[in-house]
């Protein structure tokens, strides 16, 4: 008789291999954190450059963004793994994971940052310049803090995508969560338990983040709507409770 892929027996035997799963989970987490750091750095720098006045710079950033956004991540990972060694650049799967996923997500984040900066009214930069702030000071003190609040929800969504995207590392034996699931599925035929558990683990990582993104967005909409009501009705009340305003808009 054929046993079901979800039979209790398979689950029990699958869980005796929990160490492999735990190792994969940790590795996924570490790769995600490091590549997110890289993606944020790349994204913020490129996002700022692409809203500068320098045409050559803007074009260079455009090339980067289009290249990384329009080629599947899998192929980019293959490129790092199979092609770069011919150019003498050999990296292990961990480094490829961090670099590949980081550069890829960086392209998306730079677009998020760019639109965030561009959604700040031009009057803000003009006010800063009229006061004698340099471009960099104006960005740091006036434009970016405002843009950051706007882009926090989409940034969080990018983090969620990044975590899920680390799963492509399985194809180069990345040692990540997805890879461990694949190998347990293939070598011991634990298809059912392995993929269900893996899906659940990704969900546990991503769900709080996407919930947070949604909450942030709702809060932002409330804040955007609130000041009008406050200014028309009760400026005194706003003064009495300045701490409720601390988030600004």
């Amino acid at each position, binding site marked *: 008789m054929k046993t079901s892929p979800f039979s209790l027996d398979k689950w029990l035997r699958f869980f005796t291999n929990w160490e492999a799963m735990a190792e994969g989970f940790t590795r996924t987490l570490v790769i995600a954190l490091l590549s997110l750091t890289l993606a944020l750095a790349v994204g913020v720098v490129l996002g700022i450059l692409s809203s500068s006045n320098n045409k050559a710079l803007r074009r260079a950033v455009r090339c980067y963004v289009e290249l990384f956004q329009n080629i599947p991540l899998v192929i980019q990972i293959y490129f790092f793994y199979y092609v770069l060694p011919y150019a003498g650049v050999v990296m292990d799967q961990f480094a490829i994971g961090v670099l590949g996923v980081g550069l890829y997500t960086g392209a998306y984040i730079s677009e998020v940052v760019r639109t965030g900066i561009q959604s700040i*009214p031009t*009057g*803000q930069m*003009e*006010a800063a*310049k*009229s*006061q*004698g*702030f*340099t471009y960099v*000071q104006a960005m740091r*003190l*006036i434009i970016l*803090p*405002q843009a950051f*609040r706007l882009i926090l929800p989409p940034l969080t969504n990018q983090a969620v995508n990044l975590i899920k995207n680390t799963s492509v590392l399985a194809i180069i034996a990345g040692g990540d969560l997805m890879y461990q699931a694949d190998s347990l599925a293939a070598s011991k035929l634990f298809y059912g338990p392995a993929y269900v558990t893996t899906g659940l683990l990704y969900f546990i990582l991503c769900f709080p983040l996407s919930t947070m993104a949604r909450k942030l967005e709702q809060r932002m909409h409330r804040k955007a709507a609130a*000041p009008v009501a*406050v*200014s028309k009705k009760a*400026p005194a009340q*706003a*003064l009495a409770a*300045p701490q409720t*305003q601390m988030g*600004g*808009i």
Partner: protein
Amino acid sequence: MIRLVDVNKYFGDLHVLKNINLEVKEGEKLVVIGPSGSGKSTMIRCMNFLEEPTSGHVYIDGVELTHKNKTEMNRKNIAMVFQQFNLYPHMTVLENVTLAPIRLQGLKKEEAQQQAFRYLDIVGLREKAHVYPATLSGGQQQRVAIARALATHQKIILFDEPTSALDPETVQEVLDVMIRLSRENITMVVVTHEMGFARQVADRVIFMDQGTILEEGAPEHFFENPTHERTKAFLSKILR
């Protein structure tokens, strides 16, 4: 104090400023009037290089304003008040007023705040120091913007249609502050349609049309016998 020499400005093919020559003396209150699209905002924005002239020269206190020195020159000499206030919405009123003094002029936070309260007193908004701009009315925001402009002690303040975006009932509170300001030895260039203000405050009024200065004189001149038909037509529309 401010001198424009043969200033031309193009936006693409559009010739917005045509050979403008103008001198504003120290402490002078100059009011610029004219229909929309006449180039008055562009001209005032050339005075702090928010717009760079396509050709010609701008001198501030004898020093030519250039792309290179504009940040420095603005920091030292020129403040601006905008039609849309342009307060920094992520900062409280107090932070708006103290940002430049702390960051650009090296004042200590406490010093800058003490001084800021003085200027907030002048514009009558001390009690709003700790709220965010979005909770203020337009008139209040513009008064904060004026306090912010005063806080850096520049010799020149440019006003680009400071009351045009305001509800009618808050226009006067802003004008009152500006009238009070006009007693100080600050050079003020004001683009406005408020002829009552011009009459009360201006040392000189210039009328701009289609990128040129068509007529200039004391405010009385404009009320009593403007020379050009174009000026008469414009004034008859805004003086009711």
